[in-house]
C-alpha cells in the first residue's frame, strides 16, 4: 500500500504527491473495524478544497459559546486563523504560539510547527486530506523547563459555506523536556446545512513533561466532525487527556498515544453524550512501546433517543514493554430502548510482567434509584437529570480546570432541561 501521510513536515511535499496519496487511499467501508459504525453514505457527501476564510459569517459572539479561560486563545474558522477573534495578549514566557499562513507557506515561528507525532504510517484517507487541505497550521511550543499555568485555548469553528463543505485544521503541540502546559481545544460548528470538519492534532511530549489536553467537540447535528490526535510521549512524561464528544451527526474522536519513553504515563478519560440519531465514535489506541509505562482509559457514554455510541479501545503492549500497567473501562447509560452502545476492547500483549485489565458495562437508568429519589419528593424529570449527571460526572470531575468543569457541567445540565 502506498505510504499514507505522516506527521512529517508537509511543506516539501508536492501537490501532485498529496493528491496521489489521497487517490491511493480508498474511503473506509464497514469492513474496516475502525469504521464499522460510521455512516458511510454521509461521509461520501463531504467535499474538500482549499481553505476559505469566511470568518465574518460566524453569526454569534464567540465568547458566549466557549468556556472563558484566562490564557491565550487562537480562533480558527474553516481552517483559517481569525486574528480578530484570537487573543494572544496573555502569552507567557517560554511559549511560542505560531501560525503558518496557508497561502504563503511562511512559518511565523522557527521551531514550533509540525512537531512530529512519531506515530508511524497513518494510512487514513482523512489524514491525507488533512495534509493536503489544512489551512493555517497552528503550533504550540513550550521551552524546556517552563511551566505554563494558564490554559492555551484553541477554538476551531466550521461553517460549511463556500465551494466545499468540509474544512481541515492542523495543530501541533511540542513540550520540551521538563516543561508543562494545558491545552484546551474547543470545536464548534455553525450551520443548518450539512458540513464537516477534519481536524488533526500531533503532540510530542519530551522527557519529564506534563500535558493536560482537553478536547470538547460540540458541533451541530447537521455536521460531521472527524478528529484525530496522535501523541508520542518521552520518558517519565505525563499526559492527562479529557475528551468530550458532545454532539455531531457523526462525531469521531480518534486518540492515539505512543508511550515511547520509559516510565511514561497516559491517563485518558472521556464522555460522549448523544441524542437524536447522532453517532459518537471513540477510537482510542494506546501503544506501550517502552518499559514500565502506565496507561488508563476510562470512558463513559450517555445515549438517548436513537443515538449510537462507539468505544473501540486498544491497548497494544509491544515486545520489550515489560512492567506495563494498563487499564481500560467503558460504561454506557442508555436512556432509550432505541439507543445503542457498541464497545470493543482490543488487547494485544507481547511483553512480560504486564498488568492489563479492562471492563465494559451497558445499563439503563436505575428504576430503584428513580423511585428512591421520587419518594423524597424529587420530581421524575429532576431525578432523571440527577442520575444522568451523576453518571457523567466522573468524566467531568477529571477535568483539572475549574472554569471548564463548570462550563461542561452546565452544558450537560442545559441539555436535559
Amino acid at each position: 500500500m502506498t505510504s499514507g501521510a505522516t506527521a512529517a513536515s508537509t511543506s516539501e511535499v508536492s501537490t501532485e504527491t498529496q493528491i496521489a496519496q489521497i487517490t491511493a487511499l480508498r474511503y473506509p467501508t464497514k469492513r474496516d473495524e475502525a469504521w464499522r459504525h460510521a455512516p458511510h453514505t454521509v461521509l461520501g457527501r463531504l467535499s474538500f478544497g482549499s481553505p476559505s476564510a469566511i470568518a465574518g459569517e460566524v453569526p454569534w459572539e464567540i465568547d458566549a459559546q466557549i468556556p472563558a479561560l484566562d490564557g491565550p486563545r487562537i480562533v480558527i474558522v474553516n481552517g483559517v486563523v481569525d486574528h480578530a477573534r484570537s487573543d494572544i495578549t496573555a502569552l507567557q514566557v517560554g511559549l511560542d504560539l505560531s501560525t503558518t499562513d496557508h497561502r504563503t507557506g511562511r512559518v511565523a515561528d522557527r521551531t514550533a510547527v509540525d512537531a512530529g507525532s512519531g506515530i508511524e504510517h497513518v494510512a487514513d484517507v482523512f489524514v491525507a486530506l488533512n495534509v493536503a487541505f489544512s489551512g493555517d497550521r497552528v503550533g504550540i511550543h513550550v521551552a524546556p523547563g517552563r511551566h505554563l499555568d494558564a490554559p492555551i485555548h484553541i477554538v476551531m469553528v466550521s461553517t460549511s459555506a463556500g465551494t466545499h463543505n468540509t474544512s481541515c485544521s492542523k495543530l501541533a503541540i511540542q513540550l520540551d523536556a521538563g516543561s508543562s502546559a494545558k491545552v484546551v481545544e474547543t470545536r464548534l460548528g455553525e450551520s443548518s446545512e450539512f458540513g464537516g470538519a477534519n481536524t488533526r492534532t500531533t503532540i510530542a511530549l519530551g522527557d519529564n513533561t506534563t500535558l493536560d489536553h482537553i478536547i470538547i467537540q460540540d458541533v451541530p447535528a447537521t455536521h460531521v466532525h472527524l478528529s484525530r490526535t496522535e501523541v508520542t510521549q518521552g520518558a517519565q512524561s505525563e499526559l492527562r487527556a479529557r475528551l468530550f464528544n458532545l454532539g455531531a451527526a457523526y462525531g469521531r474522536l480518534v486518540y492515539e498515544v505512543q508511550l515511547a519513553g520509559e516510565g511514561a504515563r497516559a491517563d485518558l478519560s472521556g464522555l460522549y453524550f448523544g441524542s437524536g440519531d447522532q453517532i459518537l465514535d471513540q477510537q482510542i489506541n494506546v501503544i506501550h512501546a517502552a518499559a514500565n509505562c502506565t496507561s488508563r482509559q476510562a470512558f463513559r457514554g450517555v445515549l438517548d433517543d436513537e443515538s449510537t455510541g462507539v468505544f473501540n479501545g486498544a491497548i497494544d503492549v509491544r515486545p520489550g514493554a515489560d512492567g506495563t500497567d494498563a487499564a481500560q473501562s467503558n460504561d454506557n447509560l442508555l436512556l432509550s430502548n432505541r439507543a445503542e452502545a457498541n464497545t470493543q476492547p482490543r488487547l494485544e500483549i507481547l511483553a512480560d510482567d504486564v498488568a492489563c485489565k479492562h471492563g465494559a458495562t451497558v445499563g439503563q437508568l436505575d428504576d430503584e434509584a428513580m423511585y428512591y429519589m421520587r419518594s423524597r419528593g424529587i420530581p421524575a424529570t429532576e431525578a432523571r437529570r440527577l442520575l444522568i449527571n451523576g453518571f457523567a460526572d466522573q468524566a467531568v470531575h477529571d477535568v483539572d480546570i475549574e472554569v471548564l468543569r463548570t462550563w461542561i457541567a452546565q452544558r450537560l445540565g442545559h441539555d436535559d432541561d
Partner: protein
Amino acid sequence: MLHVNNLTAAIGGKQILNGLNLDVSAGEVHAIMGPNGSGKSTFAHTLAGRDGYDITGEVTLDGADLLDMEPEARAAAGVFMGFQYPVEIPGVNNMYFLRTALNSVRRARGETEVGARDFLEVSKKAMDLVEMKEDFLYRSVNAGFSGGEKKRNEILQMAIMEPRLAILDETDSGLDIDALRIIAGGVNALRSPERSMIVITHYQRLLDYIKPDFVHVLVDGRIVKSGDHTLALHLEANGYADFENGLGDASAQSLAGAQS
C-alpha cells in the same frame, strides 16, 4: 390522619395484601409485625408509591387520596418512607440530594426554598441527631456506606424532611446494638403530636427502644391482631405460629375495625 380501607395489592398476578385496614391518628406510633412474606414491605411501598402493584381499596392522608399520587406528590403531602435497603446513587452528592429533596417538597407546597447556607445549619442539626460526621454530606448518596450508615442516612433524611407520616421499613435490620440505639434515639427525638409513624419490624427488639402506641400483626396480607406494646412481647415469646393458618382471622376483623 391516615386511613387505609380494604387495601389489596398484587404483583405479577401474585396477591400480597388481602384487605388491609388501618387507621393512624396524629402523633401515634404504630408497629406492624409479621413473619417473612406477610406483606409488610409491600404495605410500606404501596404507601410510598412504588410502581408495579395492582392495587384496590382506599388510602387517604388527611382526606387526600394517596393512591392517585406520584411518589413525589406523596412526599409533598408529608409521606416519608425509610427504606429497608437504601439505594446507592454514585455521583450524586448527599448534601445536594438532600437539599434538592427538601426544596422540591417546599416548592410543591408553595413554600420558599432553603438556601445553601441555611441548609447546612439544618443538616448539621439533623446529623447530630444520628451522630453522623459532616463528611457524609460530601459523599455520594449511600455509596460505599456501611449498613448502619445507610440506615442513619435514612433517619437523617427524615429529620430534614419533617414528614407528617413516617413509615420505617425494617429500619432495624442488619444493625448492631449501638447503631440500633442511635437510630432509635433519632426516631424518638422526631416523635411529635403532629407526626405519625408506622414502624415495620420483624423483631420485638426495636420496640424496646421505640415504644409504640399500637402493635398490629400482619399475616397473609391482612392485620390479624392488634393490641398495645405487650402484644409485641407476646410475639417475642410465642412467635407468629398462633396467628398463622387462619387462627387469627376471627379476631382480625373486629380488632382492626375497632382500631382508630
